């Protein structure tokens, strides 16, 4: 066989690891003297993406790089390979994770403040064991509480490239303003809960001190 093409090597490597690889890691498959340019790697990835357009798999860019994954249209069939249903996460865990994702860096006390209940240590441990969340520093207040943030693995797991890809938060409405509007409008015209997709809300490191 002739020397394998860059595209074939990249495909082989991505399928052999089964997890995302960055462009740099892909370039490092080659000895220094043969290392392809970043542009060449990108071009090969684009070719692969094109090749897969009618296949059962797709190329997806997530936080830690590119990965080949089974198209989600196939999940009804593919998920029958596993007897066990994937585990579900409790609301407490998902709420905690959501607060960390949207409000990072955030301390445990701040999470508890938003949720109105204490956060169990179990949840914090689970999130850290799954490597979705990690301590990214300490707040400079008495007790120096740990501040939490999400990881690249979190983004990979939820198929996201960066935090901006998270669904946007619903907007806060101002009490006074709404009262004035209420006086003018019929109550049913006031949007009850803002739809998420249409909003151009800045989702990630939102920091409104309301």
């Amino acid at each position, binding site marked *: 066989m002739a020397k394998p093409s860059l595209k074939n090597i990249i495909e082989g490597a991505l399928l052999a690891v089964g997890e995302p690889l960055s462009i740099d890691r892909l370039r490092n498959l080659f000895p220094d003297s043969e290392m392809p340019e970043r542009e060449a790697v990108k071009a090969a990835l684009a070719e692969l993406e094109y090749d897969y357009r009618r296949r059962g798999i797709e190329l997806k860019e997530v936080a830690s790089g590119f990965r080949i994954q089974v198209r989600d249209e196939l999940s009804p069939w593919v998920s029958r390979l596993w007897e066990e249903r*994937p585990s579900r996460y409790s609301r407490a865990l998902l709420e905690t994770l959501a607060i960390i994702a949207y409000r990072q860096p955030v301390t445990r006390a701040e999470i508890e403040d938003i*949720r109105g209940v204490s956060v169990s240590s179990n949840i914090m441990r689970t999130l850290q064991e799954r490597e979705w969340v990690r301590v990214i520093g300490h707040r400079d207040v008495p007790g120096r509480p740990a501040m939490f943030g999400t990881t690249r693995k979190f983004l990979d797991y*939820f198929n996201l490239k960066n935090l901006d890809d998270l669904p946007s*938060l619903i907007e806060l409405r101002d009490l006074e303003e709404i009262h004035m509007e209420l006086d003018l409008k019929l109550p049913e015209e006031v949007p009850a809960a803002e739809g*998420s997709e249409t909003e151009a809300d800045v989702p990630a490191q939102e920091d409104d001190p309301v």
Partner: protein
Amino acid sequence: MEAGQPDADEALVEQIAVVAGEPFTALPQDLYIPPDALEVFLETFEGPLDLLLYLIKRQNLDILDIPIAEITRQYISYVDLMKDLRLELAAEYLVMAAMLAEIKSRMLLPRPAQADDEEADPRAELVRRLQEYERFKTAAENLDELPRVARDIFPAHAEAPERRVVKLQPEVSLKELLSAFSDVLKRAELFTHHQVQREALSVRERMTETLSRLNADRFTVFTDLFPIKEGRLGVVVTFLAVLELIKESLVELVQAEPFAPIYLKARA
């Protein structure tokens, strides 16, 4: 596409509890609720804000326009129920009850007319917290609906070709090598009488070179060992190396008769 697979995840969005396989999407309006169902129902609340939000939504009320008196009454009756059922009741539920009672009493007080604009609605803080909580409650639901590895996303992997682990060779700096050697020297002075003296390394090197060129089976012509292009110094070094090799009995020197070519071979 959802047709084929049982839906695992819309669950918590709409339904409140599943009792004996039956989803409850609303609390029965009549007072009597089977105790088991009630217990499961009450346990699904994620805290006082969640319970309050439920009470408000159930009546299609706007968060921004809560009838405090009514909501407080309902809230307290739920908290009492939880106490009666000896559910583990987080202290936060009681704190919220006190807060509601306080707001209610402040709402009842007549507000001075001129202070109307400046004095905030006593519900403001509660509304802020409820809204904030609702945002993240929704965000959590949205997060739960995102495609997720192992549930909706299956990373593709194929059998890797024979998994040879490539071991990289350690790096060594010359400094490390030298410092190792000076350690040896120090120890050698301490433990033995072995004198390591200054030596012309070029002779040592040439000894190694010469020896590796020589064959044990075959003679090499002496003059072939001297590269002309190295000049006089090269000849001297090589000659010293050969002498040293002979002294250490590492090579054998043969000359058939005077002035005949000299041959060398490594000692077998």
